[in-house]
């Protein structure tokens, strides 16, 4: 399958600390790839690197980010700008904050088309209808404060998809929304990805969201990918202790080896505290001396799965 997005060995650093370290992942057209992990593990920075909108403090140290084969990091700023909104788009965690309070719904959406609203009004109205906003003719001229959070996220989705991008990055798109709205937004993303063949990278800290929407998932821990693979297989039989821990936090999944991971002490290490070995070693119930000394590579284990654990066979 041809990959829309292929990230290889991406490393990002802040003041010398590798907050994203050797991340590789790919997404195909029409596929939903989830990145899941605790807050601070580097999910948002990974997405920002793809959009080439990294905060000034963050440096890309290594790796390539290919959008349909072209390495984004090597393009000029003006070239990347040409891709944004047209070939890759992004939606954010706080939809209301991601919209300019003084601009109308239609103005935002038209920007992705690089046209003044009056020229593309019909197209914008169709897009509003497509993302499930009722009465688009009225909504198009309203301001963000007149809309609910869920509706603002629909507006963001409309602005992200109207340019028919191949890739949509969704950074915690439902975290700030009510549970019922969450499900609606996820359904909408899923539906649009199918219909339009858009590749979606969905960032979340919630395994429940992953189960709902994703085809494949990459589990991140402290800037590295711990485990990746198809959602069904990975949920049924995690091959990294951290994945198992995350799954244990979802009450309805009972087939998880809780005996091993019932209580995981400790916390995610800060970037300054990273040791030479596996970054999860300090909290892992399966740790052996090798884990502290040598970082496990993300190694394929068959069926499109890979894990970064020296002792994954102990979990079989």
């Amino acid at each position: 399958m041809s990959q829309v997005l292929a990230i290889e060995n991406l490393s990002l650093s802040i003041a010398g600390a590798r907050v994203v370290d050797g991340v590789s992942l790919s997404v195909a057209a029409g596929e939903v790839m989830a990145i899941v992990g605790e807050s601070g593990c580097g999910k948002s920075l990974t997405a920002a690197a793809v959009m080439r909108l990294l905060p000034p403090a963050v440096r890309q140290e290594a790796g390539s980010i290919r959008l349909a084969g072209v390495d984004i990091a090597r393009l000029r700023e003006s070239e990347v700008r040409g891709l944004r909104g047209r070939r890759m788009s992004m939606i954010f965690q706080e939809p209301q904050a991601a919209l300019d309070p003084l601009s109308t719904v239609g103005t935002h959406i038209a920007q992705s088309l690089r046209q003044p609203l009056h020229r593309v009004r019909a197209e914008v109205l169709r897009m509003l209808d497509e993302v499930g906003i009722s009465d688009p003719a009225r909504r198009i001229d309203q301001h963000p404060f007149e809309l609910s959070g869920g509706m603002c996220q629909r507006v963001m989705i409309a602005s992200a998809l109207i340019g028919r991008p191949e890739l949509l990055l969704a950074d915690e798109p439902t975290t700030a929304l009510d549970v019922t709205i969450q499900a609606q937004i996820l359904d909408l993303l899923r539906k649009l990805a199918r219909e339009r063949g858009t590749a979606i990278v969905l960032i979340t800290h919630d395994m429940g969201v992953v189960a709902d929407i994703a085809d494949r998932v990459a589990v991140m821990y402290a800037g590295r990918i711990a485990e990746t693979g198809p959602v069904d297989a990975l949920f049924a039989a995690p091959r990294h202790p951290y994945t198992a821990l995350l799954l244990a936090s979802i009450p309805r999944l009972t087939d998880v080896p809780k005996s091993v991971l019932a209580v995981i002490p400790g916390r995610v290490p800060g970037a300054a505290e990273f040791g030479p070995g596996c970054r999860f070693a300090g909290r892992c119930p399966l740790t052996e001396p090798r884990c502290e000394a040598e970082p496990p590579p993300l190694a394929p284990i068959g069926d499109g799965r890979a894990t970064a654990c020296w002792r994954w066979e102990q979990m079989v």
Partner: protein
Amino acid sequence: MGAITLTRYLASRIGQALLASFGVLTIVFFIMRLSGDPTLLLVPEGASLEQIAQLRHELGFDRPLGMQFLSYLGDLARFDFGESLVQRAPVLGIVAERVPYTVALAVGALVVALGLGIPAGIAMAVWRGGIVERALSGFVLAGQSLPTFWSGILLILLFGVSLRWLPTSGSDGFASLVMPSLALGIVAMSTFARMTRISVLDELSRDYVTAARARGLSRGGAVLRHVLRNAAIPVVTIAALEIGNLLAGAVIVETVFAWPGIGQLAIQSIQSRDFLVVQAIVLFVSLVYVFSSFLADLAYVVIDPRIRMGR
């Protein structure tokens, strides 16, 4: 529905403003009276006690202060500001003659302050951490730390005495307005530059800027289309307050440059205890203050749809 809330909002702002003016007027009235008996300034030298008492009675200064205040308010309601005790002419005419000079000075200073301060503030925020910010912040710091009388004298020395480009004092056309406007505007310019910088920086850090760039806008495009309008809201508030400060600064600048505005008149009238003139000036200044904050409110309504819709 929006229109009614809006009208009510503006009406209540006008009400508050008038109340504030009345408060200021009351305070000034009593302070002026408590500072001494104005009759003594008016009687010829060697007047007898009876003559003084006679004059005091004629002028109504022997009535209780409260009574005097009420009758002053009554006169004001009929637009009668009284007669200057010193110049023996209607106060209204004396003040009105000076107002255009101060208005010209204040407008000149605002042009300096807004025209330089706002672009400087935007530039400092947009090119944060670079050479532009460092250079501009030097100017801003200098502008805000130099006292007005001092920068006024420096300007006179430079442009008036050394370069001989501009007249050193007086009110002889546009050329003589330039230096007083600069002297008065510099402090306000620094205020605007600092406020604008903070406000723009604040807006630049918001999610909607990243989101706008994710839609393909350049950083400059996001600033022009989204950031500036949002950043203008707090700056408008400061602008309104700054007009009041400008009038206060005008007192000093008009003295330094011998500019015949109401600031100079206020100093002269306070020195001669010509309190009706002082009161009229205070009333004028507080009405200007009130009117400018009213204009700021109107500006919010134009800029911000949340206020327009009564949220």
